[in-house]
Structure formats: structure tokens, C-alpha cells
């Protein structure tokens, strides 16, 4: 099979750090955190206080009011991010391109708030009916479907739901389709909007949410912080992108997956290590070529220590020469969108020769003895980088990116 090199030619972001890719990136470089006291839910109803919410978001500022009414928040985010990515890539739509382009999105919770509202009507208010669009609003693939409708895309389109690895799996699958020639172009990423009572109560019950902020790899960490948002990437063959005069941001070169097959929530070293090795092998990269890893870095003790051990296992002595950061310290853990936001951070790191920091870092945890770029972005032009996503359920996905001259 004739494998094509695949470039990322456009990115779009909706995040607690800004409603476009550039403000997201500038905030990451400034180590500015989007984490604050949760405002969308009455604080008396939940035991934890902090989240990375998108404040002052008005759907009608970005979407036609009627279109917006047919989408839940997570699907709106997906479409807005896709619009920015497609505009940034200056895609010239033709009938042939529309017919075979792909859309792959990731989401963990989808539009569940509309279901929650329906349950309230049924079980609390004793009503006998729910919103007529409960199904199309809540389905996890609503984001992918609305992106297809928005651009008239009719090729392979679907949604992946692998918890916190959803959008990394989505981007990886889209990458493989473009690389193999199964699709001439793809819009891929993920979106999530987890700030609704049922979801927050479920996270509260898991007892993994931080008491203050998100401090990955820091001795003082006390858990993860939820975030919301979306990111979409436009993937196309590098030669075709250059031929049409596009400006590729970076090359996507590898995708690796694995399953822990061990425990439903407790991570192990082998699964994440295998996913990183598989991504390197798929990319044809030697471990020594990796200069940066955008870590899964949730700031739970279990993740950070296991991820550190997995990186040491794969990179051996090179682990002391590469830089690792968790941008979740700033945009929070956006679950099904996190891999896509972190893919954008990785692509920009290669494009601009700057590595985003791990914010809110206080002092090192000896069990996480990596160079985690504490609190300050760093100027460094690395050749290639990885972006890690390790989901509850032990499903792991890793992307590899390479800088372009």
C-alpha cells in the first residue's frame, strides 16, 4: 500500500483558556490556568469546588440561533472548533472532496445533560414526556453529524468513546485513513461539556477530584480538575497540502494503541508503555528522536506515578533528556476532548519551537522524577513529540508528531 505522509493544516479550539486556538496557545505559554470556582452548578450541591469552565460563552455569538438549538453544548463546541480548523487550513471544498472526506470525533459524555433534564421531568416532576429531540441532542455522535452537515462532508464519519482517550483514538483513526488513502482529508478531534449535576456527582463519588487546583507530577497534588472544551484538527496528505499552497503546522507520523486488560480504573505500566512503543513503531521513530511528551498527567497519584514509570520503561536513559508536561494543569481534564486539546498543544510546540509548561507546580514528587517543565514555558525546537492519553478502563492511545521545516 502506498502510504502518504500526513500533515496538520488547520486547528480549532474552544477552551477555558480562550475560544480560539491562538488564545489557547498564548495562555499555555503564559502558564495561565483556566481553573476556578465552579459557577454553573450551585456549590452547595457538590463537595468539590474547582473546575475549568468556559465562562461567558454565548452560543449565538458563534452559531446561528436555530442551529445552536439543535445542539447540546458539547456538539456546539465541536462545530465551532471545526469551523476554525477548516478556515485555518483554507480548505477549498470540491464535490469530490466533500464526497470522501472523513470526520472522526471523540466524546465521553456526549449530550447527557438533556437526558438528565428528561429524567427530572419524569421522576421528579411526574411529567409524562421529555424533550422531543432528546435522542438526537444527546447522542455522542451529534458533534460528528453536525460537522458533516455544516460542510457537506459525506465520507467516513463516526465517533469514538473511550473515556479520557476518546479524541486521541479519533485523531489516530483519522490519521490512518488519510495515510492509507481511504480518505483524502479528515476533520478529527473531540469535544466535552461535563459540567452538569449528574456528571459532577459521579466524579465526586470517584474521589479523584482535587481540593484546590490541578498540580500534575507535583508532590502537593490532590487529584484532577474537570474541564470542558473542544479541539479539531484538519489532516491531509502532505504533498497535496503543499501543492495547493497550504501551510502545514506539523506532520502527524504515528499512532499507537493498547489495552491494560488489568483493572477498570487502576492503571498499570505495561499498557501505557506498549501504546507509546506502538506509536513510535508506527511512526518509524527511534525513542531518541522524541524531545517532548505531552503527558496524560491527570494529577492523580496513580496516573502520574504509573505514567512516569511507563516513560522510563520505554525511553530508558533518554527519559532524562526529554521534556514532559501536562497542560491539563491549565485547561483541566476535558475527558473526551483532552487528547485533541493536547494534540493541538503538541502541534504548536513543534511549530513554534516552544514547550508548554506544567502549571501550578510546587515541588517534585520523587516518584515522578522527569523534567516536567515546571511553571514556565521553554524555548526548544524538538524534532518529534508524543501526546499520551490513558483512559479509565485501561484503554490507551498515543499520537506521534514531527516538526516540518
Amino acid at each position, binding site marked *: 500500500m502506498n502510504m502518504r505522509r500526513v500533515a496538520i493544516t488547520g486547528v480549532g479550539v474552544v477552551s477555558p483558556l480562550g475560544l480560539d486556538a491562538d488564545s489557547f496557545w498564548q495562555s499555555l505559554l503564559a502558564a495561565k490556568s483556566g481553573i476556578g470556582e465552579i459557577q454553573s452548578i450551585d456549590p452547595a450541591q457538590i*463537595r*468539590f469546588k474547582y473546575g475549568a469552565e468556559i465562562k461567558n460563552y454565548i452560543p449565538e455569538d458563534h452559531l446561528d440561533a436555530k442551529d445552536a438549538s439543535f445542539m447540546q453544548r458539547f456538539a456546539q463546541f465541536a462545530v465551532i472548533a471545526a469551523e476554525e480548523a477548516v478556515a485555518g487550513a483554507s480548505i477549498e471544498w470540491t464535490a469530490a472532496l466533500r464526497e470522501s472526506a472523513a470526520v472522526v470525533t471523540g466524546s465521553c459524555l456526549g449530550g447527557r445533560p438533556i437526558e438528565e433534564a428528561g429524567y427530572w421531568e419524569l421522576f421528579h416532576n411526574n411529567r409524562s414526556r421529555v424533550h422531543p429531540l432528546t435522542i438526537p441532542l444527546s447522542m455522542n455522535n451529534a458533534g460528528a453529524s453536525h460537522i458533516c452537515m455544516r460542510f457537506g462532508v459525506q465520507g467516513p464519519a463516526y465517533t469514538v468513546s473511550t473515556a479520557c482517550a476518546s479524541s486521541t483514538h479519533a485523531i489516530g483513526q483519522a490519521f490512518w485513513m488519510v495515510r492509507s488513502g481511504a480518505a483524502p482529508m479528515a476533520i478529527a478531534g473531540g469535544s466535552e461539556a461535563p459540567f452538569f449535576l449528574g456528571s459532577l456527582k459521579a466524579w465526586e*463519588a*470517584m*474521589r479523584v*477530584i482535587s*481540593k484546590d487546583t490541578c498540580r500534575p507530577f507535583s508532590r502537593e497534588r*490532590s*487529584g484532577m480538575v474537570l474541564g470542558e472544551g473542544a479541539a479539531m484538527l484538519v489532516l491531509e496528505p502532505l504533498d497535496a497540502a503543499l501543492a495547493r499552497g497550504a501551510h502545514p503546522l506539523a506532520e502527524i507520523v504515528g499512532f499507537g494503541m493498547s489495552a491494560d486488560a488489568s*483493572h*477498570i*480504573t*487502576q492503571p498499570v505500566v505495561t499498557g501505557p508503555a506498549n501504546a507509546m512503543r506502538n506509536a513510535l513503531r508506527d511512526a518509524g521513530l527511534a525513542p531518541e528522536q522524541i524531545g517532548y511528551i505531552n503527558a496524560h498527567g491527570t494529577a492523580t497519584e*496513580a496516573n502520574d506515578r504509573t505514567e512516569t514509570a511507563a516513560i522510563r520503561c520505554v525511553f530508558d536513559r533518554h527519559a532524562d533528556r526529554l521534556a514532559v508536561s501536562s497542560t491539563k494543569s491549565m485547561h483541566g481534564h476535558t475527558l473526551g476532548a483532552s487528547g485533541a486539546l493536547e494534540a493541538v498543544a503538541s502541534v504548536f510546540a513543534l511549530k513554534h519551537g516552544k514547550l508548554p509548561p506544567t502549571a501550578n507546580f510546587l515541588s517534585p514528587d520523587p516518584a515522578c522524577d522527569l523534567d516536567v517543565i515546571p511553571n514556565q514555558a521553554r524555548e526548544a525546537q524538538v524534532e518529534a513529540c508524543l501526546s499520551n492519553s490513558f483512559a479509565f478502563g485501561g484503554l490507551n492511545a498515543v499520537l506521534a508528531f514531527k516538526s516540518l521545516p
Partner: protein
Amino acid sequence: MPKQSVPSIQDRVLKVIATSKHVPLESVHPDSTFESLTIDSLDRLNILFDLESEFDIEINDEDAKEVKDIREMIEGVTKLVEAKSASAPAE
């Protein structure tokens, strides 16, 4: 009617653990460790949830993280139950 003895907090905690872990009550002792009962992080979550229901208390995340064995769990629950009855309005 014969007077029934009220189960102690310790007995109730042990019963919650045995029920949650699906093990015989006789196998759970105050001196048992989480390891000896193969209680992992998810089992702990279930037990904390069941203890909150059994005693109508709220167990703080940070306090829960400090608990290393069954005895500490019994002590922690006892403190919370006592604090609750101390703050309850007099009848």
C-alpha cells in the same frame, strides 16, 4: 420481648466491609489490612459509599486518603458518628 443488643459501630463497619466485598463476616477483623482482604482502590470507594449510607455521614476525600487499615476506618467512622450526634439538636 427480649432486649436485643445494639450492634456497635465496629460491628457495623465490619459488616459493611464484608457485605461490600462479598466475603464472610468472620474473615473481617479490626486488625485486618486492606491487602489481606484484597481491598483495592475501587473496593475502598464502594466501602466508603456504603459507610456513608449506613451511618448517614459524609467522609471527606482527604481524610479518606489517610486511612491505612480497618482499625483506622473504624476510628474515623466513630469520630464522624460522635460529631454528628454532638451537633444534633436535643430532643
